[in-house]
Each structure stands twice: as structure tokens, then as C-alpha cells.
């Protein structure tokens, strides 16, 4: 086995996450799929860090984790705010601007 296999699994997980963002309706599940995509990118960073033999990739993955944590905090707060006013966590229901 060579280290590139991790890259393949990272590509697969990223694709699955992208499908989830498009297909699912529950805003929280959509959010988890975004997290999955970020994690897949992190796996790529760590694998390339190993292939290239320096720690820059790992530092990048560390920054990605911090940004993901910020994103989760703000995103979930937005979901709670929308839920409070509309009583629904579905991404299809928040269509006030369309009408």
C-alpha cells in the first residue's frame, strides 16, 4: 500500500460530503456534511505533509480545524435563530426572499 491511498479516501469523503450538502434538507445534516468535506481536506493536508516530509501541511490542517470550529459555532447559532422564528430546521422552508 502506498500513502496515496489516503488521498483517494479523502477524495471519496469529500464527494460524499458534497452530495450530502445538495441532497439533504435538514440544515444540521447539511452542516455535518460540510464538516465532512473539511475533514476530507484535512486528511489530504496530513497525507501531503507526510509525502513532502515537512510539517506545513499539519499546521494548515490545524488552522482548518480552528476555522471549522468557528464556522460550527456561528452556523449552529444561525440555525437556532432561524428555528426560533420559523419553527423548522429545513433548508427549503427558509425561502422568504424568493416570494
Amino acid at each position, binding site marked *: 500500500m502506498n500513502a496515496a491511498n489516503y488521498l483517494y479516501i479523502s477524495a471519496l469523503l469529500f*464527494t460524499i*460530503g*458534497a452530495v450530502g450538502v*445538495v441532497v*439533504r434538507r435538514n440544515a444540521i445534516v447539511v452542516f455535518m*456534511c460540510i464538516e465532512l468535506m473539511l475533514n476530507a481536506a484535512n486528511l489530504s493536508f496530513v497525507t501531503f505533509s507526510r509525502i513532502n516530509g515537512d510539517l506545513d501541511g499539519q499546521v494548515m490542517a490545524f488552522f482548518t480545524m480552528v476555522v471549522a470550529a468557528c464556522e460550527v459555532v456561528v452556523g449552529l447559532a444561525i440555525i437556532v435563530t432561524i428555528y426560533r422564528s420559523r419553527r423548522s430546521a429545513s433548508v427549503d422552508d427558509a425561502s422568504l426572499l424568493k416570494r
Partner: protein
Amino acid sequence: MQLALEVGQTAQPEAIMFWILGPMAVVAALGMLLVKKAVHSAILMAFVMVVLAIFYIAQDAVFLGIVQVVVYTGAVMMLFLFILMLVGVDSSDSLTETIAGLRPIAITAAVGFGGLMVSLLGRATLGRQAIGLSAANADGNVQGIAKELFSTYVFPFEVVSALLITAAMGAMVLAHHQRTTVRPTQRQLSINRFRGESLGSAAGLPGPGVYARHNAVDVPALLPDGTPAPTSVNASLEARGDMLDYKSFDLAEVNTQIEEEK
């Protein structure tokens, strides 16, 4: 054509670990899309994150592996589950397609994108062997990352700390809830009950399980005439589908003869 990044073979135990955990992670990620309940999605997501943490540790990124467990499976997933419990279950959990033809298009696009990525990786060449992290980790992985973080990346590090504080502030502002009306007092609530449309709920709504055959929260109370009172069961239990069918508790006839015989 040179194939697939001939970047050095990894040790045999790592290969075994990879071929066991890798497919499991992909299946769990697919399951995330296919399961109906968001809580099950969250648990599968936590599994994928633990597998990724193991992958990090296997690739000499010990610090990131531990951080992955602490931050993602610990804090982030806990936050997700917390919000799930807060928001509860509603129609958005169903898997029905609301935009016609979205799913086939999404799957086609995903197969195209995934195929592109995989074939790109298959054709890519790095032109050298994998170096591995034994030299970079010579002083220890944490020390190595700290050296990078506080020298080359010290400015991004400060920017990220500002981002964290801003995110915390943003969440506080978003979650802050200001009352626009005066909170009704107990006295006011009581007056409202008696001055409402009917006196039906003047004494408060019935509790679940009262006079029913089972004393449980998912069983509606029986009214004096034997009919069940659906208002006695919490609405969220009903939405979740956890309420027992109250028709089965409907008494066919109320036996009033016992009193008369006495």
C-alpha cells in the same frame, strides 16, 4: 504513463489498518446521507471523525490525531447533538425529494467529480519518494508544530485567534434573545385561563396517563367519558412519532353499572 504517486510503500500493519478502517469510514459517510434521523447521521459522523483521527496518528501526525478527537468528536459533535436536541425532530428529517430531479443530477455530478478527482490522483506524479516525517518529527511532533506555528505562521495564528473571538461574540449576539413583551405572571396566566373561550382547560391540561390503562408519558389521559385526550401528551412526542395510538385506548363503553348495584 507513471501510475499513482509511487511514493513509497507503507508498513504492513498500516496497510491492514487502512483496508479495514478506510472502507468502514466510506460506508459510514454514505450512511450519513441515507439514514433518516439526524441523530443517526451525527453518530455516523462521529465514527468517521474517529477513523480520521486514527489515520492522522498512523501518518505521524500525533498532535492532530489527538486534537481531532478532542475538538471534533468531543466538542463539535457534542455541539451538534446539543442543537439537535434543542431543535428537535421535524419534517426536514424526511428523505423526500422537494426539488424535482435534484437527486439524479446531484448523483451524476458527484460521480463525475469523484471520478475526476480519483483519475487526477491516479495520473499525478510527485516525481520523488515519500520523505516521511521521521526527520521533521525528530524533536517530537508537538515541538515541531509549535516551532512552525510560532515562527513562520505566527501572523496567521494571531488572525485565527481574532477569528475565534469574533465567532464567540457572533454566537452570543445571535443567541441573545430579547423579550419584546412583558413576561406574564402566574396571576395573569390564571386570569387568562378563566376568561378564555371555554372553561375546558381552566384547571390546567390533563397529565398523560391519567385514568388510562398505562401510566406513561406517551399514553394520553382518558377523559371522564372514556375518550382519550390527545392534548395531554407532549407535542414533541407526537411529532417524533413516539406517541402510542390513542384510539386503542378508547374505552368502548364506560361501565356505570357498578355504582348503581351498590
